[in-house]
């Protein structure tokens, strides 16, 4: 017997959202083999995206001979990816001379790409954790967007309404407000699901719209709108409520980055070291057995959705208190949806989420630099991200391309080999 055991076919049932989630966070997906899959998926995505880079440059097609065309194409690709890399991490050739210059501004400029990567990654960590926590409890939180907005609005409101407090009081209060508002935005679909069975995918999407339009309403009220402005923009948050800068005025790096790491560790502990986390994971994997073992499934659903909402709310607070310092429509910039991508790539694992957020943060920070340095548009990054997710979602394809053997574990592959008559 040298063949891998074919998966047992599930008995006459429709694939549900829960099945899809379970596949993403399947325990075998945390092995080295799966890390390899992610790395290869990223590599493949870069290779394929190169076609877009070349395609977007008319000089390649208009080149007089194939050799010149190849040359131009190579310059395009290396320019784009070189720009992406130096925009995300820094330029190695000038890095040391800049650091050695002794001039504060010049030293800071060497670290600027790294700082931008971390600043872009922090909110992705929060929304990624939000979706990952939901995954673990068997819930698909598509409402990150609304929860980010709710969190940002509340954090901003506390930040510009309270005055005369020290940062030790006002900042935690503002962050707490962001968490609580996001949690409320998650609590509602959680309660609806626990009480009526309404599916969270539907209710969370709808609450996204509610949050988006509530923003416009709030920003037109006296309590929010900046005096003397007619456009929807809020007052500016107190410096006492702002997330402190970590590296001086020349870099945007702020304490939200540290908070993101702390929260990721906290989520890990919650899931694997507390009784509540045990309940989340048990209910997520099998609500029937959990109920039979005495776990209150409804309570777990409400708590998990609330916590997931709170985490996304922290992403909103992070943006408002650490980067924007005021609320305006669209500040969430699809962070909630990107959280789904990050959680998928991170396989629903806090450590994986941090790694995935860093990758995407780097891509985004690098994209700006890339567009400035070459003619390649920032949208390339969107293509890369989409391709990475596609390949990660189709591990069989990646294994096929690179001839990696599948692991022998029960119930692993999603697609059964063609058996049955």
């Amino acid at each position, binding site marked *: *017997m*040298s*063949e891998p055991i*074919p998966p*047992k*076919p599930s*008995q*006459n049932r429709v694939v549900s959202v829960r099945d899809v989630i*379970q596949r993403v966070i*399947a*325990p075998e997906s945390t092995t080295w083999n799966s890390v390899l899959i992610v790395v290869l998926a990223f590599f493949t995505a870069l290779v394929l995206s190169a076609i877009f880079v070349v395609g977007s440059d008319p000089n390649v097609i208009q080149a007089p001979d194939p050799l010149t065309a190849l040359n131009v194409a190579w310059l395009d690709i290396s320019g784009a990816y070189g720009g992406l890399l130096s925009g995300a991490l820094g330029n190695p050739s000038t890095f040391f001379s800049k650091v050695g210059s002794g001039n504060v501004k010049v030293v800071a400029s060497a670290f600027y790409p790294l700082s931008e990567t971390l600043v872009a990654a922090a909110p992705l960590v929060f929304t990624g954790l939000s979706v990952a926590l939901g995954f673990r409890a068997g819930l698909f939180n598509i409402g990150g967007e609304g929860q980010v907005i709710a969190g940002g609005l509340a954090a901003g409101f506390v930040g510009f309404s309270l005055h005369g407090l020290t940062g030790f009081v006002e900042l935690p209060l503002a962050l707490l407000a962001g968490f609580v508002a996001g949690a409320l935005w998650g609590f509602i679909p959680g309660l609806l699901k626990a009480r009526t069975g309404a599916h969270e995918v539907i209710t969370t999407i709808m609450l996204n719209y509610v949050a988006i339009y509530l923003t416009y309403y709030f920003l037109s009220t006296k309590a929010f709108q900046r005096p003397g402005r007619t456009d929807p923009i809020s007052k500016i948050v107190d410096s006492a409520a702002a997330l402190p800068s970590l590296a001086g005025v020349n870099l945007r790096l702020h304490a939200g980055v540290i908070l993101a790491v702390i929260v990721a560790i906290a989520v890990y502990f919650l899931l*694997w*070291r*507390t*009784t*509540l*986390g*045990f309940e989340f*994971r*048990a209910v997520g*994997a*099998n609500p*029937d*057995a*959990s*109920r*039979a*073992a*005495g*776990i*209150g499934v409804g309570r777990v659903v409400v708590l998990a959705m609330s916590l997931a909402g709170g985490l996304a709310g922290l992403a909103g607070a992070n943006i408002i208190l650490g980067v924007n310092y005021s609320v305006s429509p669209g500040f969430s910039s699809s962070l909630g949806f990107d959280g789904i991508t990050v959680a998928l790539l991170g396989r629903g694992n806090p450590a994986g989420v941090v790694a995935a957020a860093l990758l995407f943060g780097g891509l985004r920070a690098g994209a700006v630099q890339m567009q400035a340095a070459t003619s390649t548009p920032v949208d390339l990054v969107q293509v890369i991200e989409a391709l990475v997710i596609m390949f990660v979602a189709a591990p069989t394809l990646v294994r096929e391309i690179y001839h990696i053997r599948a692991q022998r*574990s*029960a*119930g692993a592959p999603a697609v059964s080999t*063609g*058996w*049955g*008559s």
Partner: protein
Amino acid sequence: MLANDHIDLVVEPGEVHVLLGENGAGKSTLMNILYGLYHPDEGEILVNGKPVKFESPSDAIRMGIGMVHQHFMLIPVFTVAENVMLGLELTGLFGFLDRRRASREVERLGKEFGLPVNPDALVESLSVGAQQRVEIVKALYRRAGVLILDEPTAVLTPQETDELLGVMESLKRAGRSLVFITHKLKEAMQVADRITVLRGGRVVGSTLPGQSTEAELAAMMVGRAIRLGVDRSPSKPGAAVLDVKGLTVRNAHGQVAVDDVSFQVRAGEIVTVAGVQGNGQTELVRAIMGLDQVASGRITAAGRDVTTSSPRETLASGVGHVPEDRVRDGLVGDLSVAENLVLDMYYMAPFAHGPMLEPAEIQRSAQQRIKEFDIRTPSPLTLVGTLSGGNQQRVIVAREFSRPVTLMIASQPTRGLDVGSIEYIHERIVQLRDQGDAVLIVSSDLDEVFALGDRIAVMFQGHMSGPFDSQLYTREQVGLMMAGSSAEAAPAKGGGESA
């Protein structure tokens, strides 16, 4: 891994060849090789004397080998006829499907072999037994000369099992060969022309049903002598621990599933509830455990009124529960063995302090119980869903039997398990009784009902007869009561009169 080691197997035309073996003995692997799903590393397959090589199941089908899997390969939203002709569609003029001809063909095959199926019914509307008949018709439609049945009775009720064994007889008379994979000794003895016993991937014996006893076959399967009954002393019952009074439960569709049932289980005795699946036993247990709502009546367990208690309150008052469907209700497949061993105790000391889990203690306790209950698992961290059925059930038994309980409720505690595991679990149950616990067992297996029960009750259509002393009735009488004869009618006449 070596799953099959130099196996020789000869199936004659018109014979029922029983392949007997415990879970993991290599029965299914062997059959999957014969069906072209796996490829042998060594050895050859001959059909009608000619060597053949199967690359895929379609090669096997072409050579006249049909297989009925444990899990049916049917499309629920298609009709029976559509499922049967799938892959070999009959077409009429212009390539349109000729459904009528397919229906006629299905009906003809059904009549010929005693497999009544309605060709136009949707598969999803059929019972498990009927779906299995569709699978058999499907194989016959493909002109199978050799039919492999992989543990076909595991999913059937006793009546359906008898029907299936009848079908096998008629197929045999029609000259078809059958390979019948099972680990149930009674069935094997009943229909076999030849029995081959597998253990650890090897053939350990081949015999004719007249030449060996059930005990000898069991010993061959397990590799040591097996007690088929359970040794136990007479019970010394004490006070009532479970007291059910006038219990009525409605199912999800609002129908009365348990109808005014009253009984007691006393300390130090085992009460078994016999009944064909679907006569209210499931709902009875779920109501006691607080998983289903009670419509009326009262339940007192371990000295507390648990009529409206939550599952956790009932469990915490000293009730152990081995659920009927171990995969759905008993275990969380994607959690580890260690985690499943504390599934209903994770929040209590010593497994938790306040809100924090104590992973070291959970691990230590798991290691100890894996040893004590002989759970075959590579490690406590192995996912429970990857274990065999017998070991999964041992995990549940280890969990429930190591909690401090005064009442143990176990539904179908040994369904689908191999002889060795059944023996083990039965011993533990009797041991529990001897410690003075009250035990309620629900089972549709008459052997088990009689092996364990100090008193026996029968459920039929939501009503309960008994419990009465196990000496009072014979197996046959209880079997008739399961089919609806009244308790009074059964012993007097020794035969069936509908109640």
